[in-house]
């Protein structure tokens, strides 16, 4: 007997998770970056003793506080969804997720919340040095919170440091350090937090530009712009470096995502990187078309970025489906070191792994040791393909290519745009002509929504590009969801939509009112 899952349940659960994550990520990046910008501004105040810097620090700190207060706990809803909608997944990963999330709760949250109180209530009550330390520890605490959840996310992209226990159907932590310091986790953390820093930098220079346009708080605005642009430029360069690291990791661990991101159907050796392209939209696998109608390409660059070798073969979507090529990296499953399996073979091995889990259970129940060992051995050999066993056709492993392709380009174009924005801001600031370039000030202001779009596009590449997997190769969405009624998920989807929209409106209203008040002596708590 088999249990057939209602596909609308899968879709609604995914939609609900995506909605929550999208809204959650509207609040988080500003918290990550603005906390550091505030700490830098306060450091300047402590060093120079200039009261203007204290006023500026308190202004941005108030905006940080508003964003933090509205955004806090929006991420906890994702954990509720794990328990209700994604119970198979929660159980399957429980031990691996438990440790990072518990550390996040105990360490970072308490560190953060304790020192936030000192930041806001401690002016004139604690020493300058202690207050400054609290501001820096708040920033570090906020970023440490992000570390643990990103480690958990990275594990889903590249599961490592664990051992599957067929007795309880759970992955158990075998090496905590492998989970924490996996190359995907380290790079994901650095790339994500630096995107938060760029978000905050654009936010600071955008709001400051508004003050210049209104000819208000000009001195504070110009100082803020300087800090924001320098911080933004440094972190944007770091963002590019870690972005390159993401592509390198992707080539090794998620080649299908890389292929989708590049709209690459048939790989070549070497392979160029598409700078500009238009996806045909209705491209089908093996239809004899390239999938990209118009393209402007830099020769060899994809081979170089993905494999650190300008001549490397980059497998396309059709190559990954067919298999048969020699993988460039050695960290593939042992059976594929010489020749990549086709998707069909992976599906067959996945089904063997699932059957072996069933055989193992029955053999344990009857006490048949030989059969237990045989099933265990088959499960171990085929476990790297476990999730493929739930797929019905090779095409199922292809994510939404146009969405991944365009989201990647939006993210990269905007990333490049922000670097130019920071450079020109510093250039005009140095020439002391910033206030006269009204068109540029408007551009800075209207760049605020763009930086949020860039961040969301990055997450779309990360998450849509790895479909159908919840855990890469081990668990697809269809096997991860709970056997519950899709109607209840639909109801909570709309509840979330209302709740989060209300929170967003509240944030925008409170924040714009506070911005209009502007920096003032004594600041606001």
């Amino acid at each position, binding site marked *: 007997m*088999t249990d057939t899952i209602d596909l609308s349940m899968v879709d609604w659960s995914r939609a609900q998770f995506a909605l929550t994550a999208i809204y959650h990520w509207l609040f988080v990046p500003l918290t990550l970056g603005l906390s550091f910008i505030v700490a830098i501004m306060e450091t300047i105040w402590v060093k120079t003793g200039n009261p203007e810097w204290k006023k500026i620090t308190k202004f941005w700190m108030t905006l940080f506080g508003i964003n933090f207060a509205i955004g806090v706990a929006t991420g906890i809803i994702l954990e509720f969804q794990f328990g209700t909608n994604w119970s198979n997944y929660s159980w399957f990963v429980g031990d691996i997720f438990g440790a990072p999330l518990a550390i996040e709760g105990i360490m970072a949250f308490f560190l953060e919340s304790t020192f936030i109180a000192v930041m806001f209530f401690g002016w004139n009550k604690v020493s300058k040095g202690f207050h400054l330390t609290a501001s820096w520890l708040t920033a570090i605490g906020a970023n440490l919170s992000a570390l643990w959840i990103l480690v958990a996310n990275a594990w889903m992209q590249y599961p490592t440091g664990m051992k599957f226990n067929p007795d309880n159907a759970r992955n158990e932590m075998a090496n905590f350090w492998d989970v924490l310091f996996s190359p995907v986790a380290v790079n994901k953390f650095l790339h994500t937090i630096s995107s938060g820093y760029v978000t905050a930098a654009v936010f600071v220079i955008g709001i400051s530009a508004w003050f210049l346009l209104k000819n208000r708080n000009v001195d504070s605005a110009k100082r803020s712009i300087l800090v924001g642009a320098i911080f933004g430029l440094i972190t944007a360069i770091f963002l590019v470096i870690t972005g390159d690291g993401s592509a390198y990791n992707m080539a090794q661990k998620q080649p299908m995502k890389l292929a989708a991101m590049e709209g690459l159907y048939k790989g070549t050796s070497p392979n160029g990187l598409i700078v500009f392209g238009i996806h045909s939209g209705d491209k089908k696998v093996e239809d004899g078309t390239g999938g990209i109608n118009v393209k402007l390409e830099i020769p060899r660059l994809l081979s170089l970025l993905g494999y650190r070798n300008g001549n490397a073969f980059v497998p396309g979507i059709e190559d990954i489906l067919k298999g048969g090529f020699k993988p460039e990296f050695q960290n593939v499953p042992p059976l594929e070191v010489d020749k990549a399996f086709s998707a069909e073979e992976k599906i067959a091995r996945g089904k063997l792994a699932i059957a072996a889990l069933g055989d193992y259970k029955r053999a344990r129940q009857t006490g048949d040791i030989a059969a237990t060992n045989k099933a265990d051995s088959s499960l171990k050999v085929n476990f790297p393909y476990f999730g493929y066993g739930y797929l019905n056709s090779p095409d199922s492993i292809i994510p939404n290519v146009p969405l991944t392709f365009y989201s990647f380009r939006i993210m990269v174009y905007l990333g490049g745009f922000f670097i130019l924005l920071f450079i020109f801001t510093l250039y005009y600031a140095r020439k002391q002509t910033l206030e006269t370039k009204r068109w540029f000030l408007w551009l800075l202001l209207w760049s605020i929504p763009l930086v949020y779009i860039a961040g969301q596009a990055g997450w779309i590449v990360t998450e849509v590009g790895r479909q159908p997997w919840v855990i890469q190769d081990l668990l697809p969405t269809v096997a991860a969801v709970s056997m519950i009624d899709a109607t209840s998920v639909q109801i909570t989807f709309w509840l979330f939509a209302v709740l989060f929209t209300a929170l967003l409106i509240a944030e925008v209203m409170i924040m714009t009112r506070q911005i209009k008040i502007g920096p003032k002596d004594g600041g606001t708590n």
Partner: protein
Amino acid sequence: MNFFKKIFLFYYDGFRSMTVGKKLWIVILIKLFIIFIILRLIFFPNFLKSKFSGDKERGDYVREQLIKRK
């Protein structure tokens, strides 16, 4: 003044002198009430915990699901 009293007064004075913070606390409290009371208790029971009393039963159920799921 003992240490704990100092901490209490630190927070007490801080909250009392809030201006923007008061609005934010109202938003936070409403939000936490919706999240933890309405959503968590009514709409988001833990599926496995609500159906099974122990980890053994939960593990058996998920394993069965993993074996039979199509």
